[in-house]
């Protein structure tokens, strides 16, 4: 009898603990859980589960916006004032000072947006420059813009991403500096504790406005070793892991019983930026020769066809204004390897035997491996590329000091405007720009089109202008787009996300109130 009782207790214990989902990320520890600073994948994952935006990207599909904390919204005829009507009864997680939490109102929303717009309390302040926020009544908020913006440019700023996450005022003020490691929000899971260099524990928030989550909680583990992550997944100690973005790894895991590999978007663009101020790349014929030397197909083959999709414009096609390969071809800015043509162009530019370049690259495989492939391809026309491998942090510092003639960059940005402004507007030129950012090529010719597109309200007109801007950039061969690298996670087949996963801005398969373990 006693044995049966023990077995029953044990079984119940297993069943209860099985409802805590464990995710393992390729990270040593968290950095910050203040949503207005969180940028790394493992931090965004926690933030995504703890906070909400006024609107949200439909789970698993970033092409659709739907209500989140706001149940509806409208824009004034001049396009400058947006009004959001908040849901009633949205509860903030319990925290010291409000053990039952409290109801989220417009006061919190105004506070949060003001925080997001302040460079002292947010990394995304630039996104909200010139905006004013006002609480009309407890459930109505207005946002006034300095200039009208199209929905595709404005809604991401108030969505469940970066500065759009709503931070409850009283919790932030009560916790002060501790908020960054002890976040309080309104999402389906509430923060429980952080074990340094090991994990973060979250518990289901029973008062979540969409209903109590099916899971009892979530543990986010920091496991930098991929073999350990996969071993833990194989033994059932974790249910979801960040994978390796390599075809061989994907193929191996696909063969393992009980495991499923998810390859999903939006992915990150891989683009080679050619510094137009460094000799001999200051000669457009040389840049064109490089464009005709490098084979996109070969690069994609090396990365893995399951993981990489061809990219022919500098804005990917999953965003409004993205340029497809057919469109690039129609506009005469589609480059594919033609070595005879490349050699002829080099000879025309006075370099029949090629030349030498030297460039830094980060040790990270997703950058280093394609760069080594580029090195091998360039050698076919006599261009000797010396690669200097450094750590990731140093790489980012060095390329921002304008030391590289070629910059291979992996990036995700939430809109065509963000891609074009930050990589191709003259204000963003590294070191010398008005607001130095990531314009590594020093191109200036696309400024007018980028600015016109930003001001356009008609979606079709705006998209056309973004495509025109890309045509200018590609015609100058300032940047060579190669592919979009998708994200890879592996999971137990017991894990059901509760939605169809196609693409996600959180850069991990979002876990929400519908997620369950079978």
């Amino acid at each position, binding site marked *: 009898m006693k044995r049966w009782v023990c077995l029953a207790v044990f079984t119940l214990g297993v069943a209860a603990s099985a409802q805590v989902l464990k995710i*393992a990320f390729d990270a*040593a*520890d*968290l*950095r*910050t859980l203040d949503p207005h*600073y969180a*940028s*790394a994948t493992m931090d965004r994952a926690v933030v995504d589960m703890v906070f909400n935006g006024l609107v949200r990207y439909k789970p698993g599909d970033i092409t659709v916006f739907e209500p989140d904390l706001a149940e509806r919204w409208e824009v004034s005829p001049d396009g400058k004032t947006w009004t959001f009507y908040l849901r009633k009864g949205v509860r903030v997680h319990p925290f010291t000072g409000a053990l039952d939490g409290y109801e989220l109102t417009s006061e919190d929303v105004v506070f949060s947006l003001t925080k997001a717009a302040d*460079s*002292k309390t*947010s*990394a*995304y*302040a*630039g996104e909200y420059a010139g905006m004013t926020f006002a609480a009309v009544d407890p459930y109505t908020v207005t946002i006034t813009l300095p200039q009208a913006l199209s929905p595709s440019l404005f809604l991401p700023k108030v969505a469940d991403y*970066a500065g759009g996450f709503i931070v409850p005022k009283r919790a932030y003020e009560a916790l002060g*500096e501790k908020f*960054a*490691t002890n976040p309080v929000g309104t999402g389906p899971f509430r923060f429980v504790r952080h*074990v*340094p*260099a*090991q*994990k973060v524990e979250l518990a289901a928030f029973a008062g979540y406005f969409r209903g109590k989550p099916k899971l009892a909680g979530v543990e986010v*583990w*920091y*496991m*930098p*070793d991929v*073999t*350990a992550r996969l*071993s*833990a997944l*194989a*033994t059932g*100690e*974790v249910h979801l892991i960040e994978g390796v973005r390599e075809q061989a790894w994907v193929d191996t895991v696909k063969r393992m019983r009980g495991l499923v590999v998810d390859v999903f978007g939006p992915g990150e663009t891989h683009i080679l930026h050619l510094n137009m101020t460094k000799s001999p790349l200051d000669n457009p014929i040389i840049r064109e020769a490089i464009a005709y030397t490098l084979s996109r197909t070969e690069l994609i083959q090396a990365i893995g066809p399951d993981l990489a999709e061809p990219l022919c414009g500098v804005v990917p096609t999953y965003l409004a204004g993205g340029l497809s390969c057919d469109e690039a071809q129609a506009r005469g800015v589609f480059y594919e390897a033609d070595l005879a043509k490349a050699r002829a162009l080099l000879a025309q530019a006075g370099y029949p035997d090629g030349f030498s370049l030297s460039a830094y690259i980060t040790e990270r495989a997703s950058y280093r491996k394609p760069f080594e492939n580029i090195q091998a391809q360039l050698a076919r026309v006599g261009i000797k590329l010396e690669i200097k491998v*450094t*750590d*990731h*942090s*140093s790489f*980012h*510092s*060095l390329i*921002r000091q304008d030391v590289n003639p070629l910059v291979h960059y992996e*990036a*995700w*940005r939430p809109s065509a405007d963000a891609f074009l402004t*930050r990589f191709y507007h003259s204000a963003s030129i590294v070191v010398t720009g008005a*607001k*130095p*950012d*990531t314009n590594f090529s020093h191109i200036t010719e696309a400024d007018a089109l980028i600015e016109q597109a930003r001001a356009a309200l008609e979606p079709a007109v705006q998209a056309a202008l973004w495509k025109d801007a890309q045509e200018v950039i590609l015609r100058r061969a300032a940047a060579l787009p190669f592919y979009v690298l998708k994200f890879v996670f592996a999971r137990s087949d017991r894990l059901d996300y509760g939605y169809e996963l196609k693409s996600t801005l959180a850069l991990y398969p979002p876990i929400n109130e519908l997620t369950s373990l079978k």
Partner: protein
Amino acid sequence: MGSYVLRRILVAIPALLAAYTLVFLFIRVAPGDPAVAALGDYASAEAVRALRERMGLNDPLIVQYGRGLLGYLGGDLGRSLITGIPIGTQVASVLPHTLQLTFAGLLVGILLGIPTGVLTAVKRNRLPDYLGRTFALAGLSVPAFYLGILLILAFSVRLRWFPVMGSGEFSDPWANLRHLVLPALTLGIIMTAFVTRMTRSALLNVLREEYVRSARAKGLRERTVIYLHALRNALIPVVAVVGSQAAVLIGDSVMTEIVFTRPGLGRLMVQAMNQRDYIALQSMIVLYAGLVVVINLVTDLLYGVVDPRIRYD
């Protein structure tokens, strides 16, 4: 002995100051920016500038240097530039795990290494000697991360005896012990190799001494000669190796901590280095230097225990 200990502590102060100064300067010379590391590449240059200001990185170097030093004098290790968590809190949370792993590794090394060393010395140039030396050579050659993965695949994935990840809570000793076994074996097998080789060579030297011959001539049993007379004298260099390796193990445990997803000082240090978390890194290096000083002191004091002829005046 009290004055000896005090003298050693006073001598350690310049060493700690030198460690702080060197790491303070070197990490700032290296390219990389903690603000960029904290914010990620998506953040604008304006946001990076604002964060650098908030982090105090725009202050003159001498001000930053003095700020750190004053903090240490007041017992404050500062706050992480990246997470804002007090470094003292972070260290306090992981140091018990690091010390536990290090001492468990040492224990495995001593418990396996000394008997193996004795066996290989006594059975010199015979099969047990060859096997023991081969084991020692293998232990010295295999990297910790590789050995750790092999142990995980064998004992966690295949046999399911031990968990793959985590350290378990100290409040649950059984779970804590289960989490400790494989990491301790990983470090311990490597440590065993050092101890075996040192014990063997020290014992072989001692066994050639005249007092050993005298003991045998008196008709003492071989076991008594080895364990009571020879081994005790052979242990002094072994203690030295164990002491120096204890300090090395704390640093070396980083790969074991990563493979087994254990919190630990080494892992925190590597993370601080990658993220250019200047404050965390310099504080942890100073702390690590302090630990080395303490371990060396304890090792020196242990000589006196092993050999009573050694006095500390």
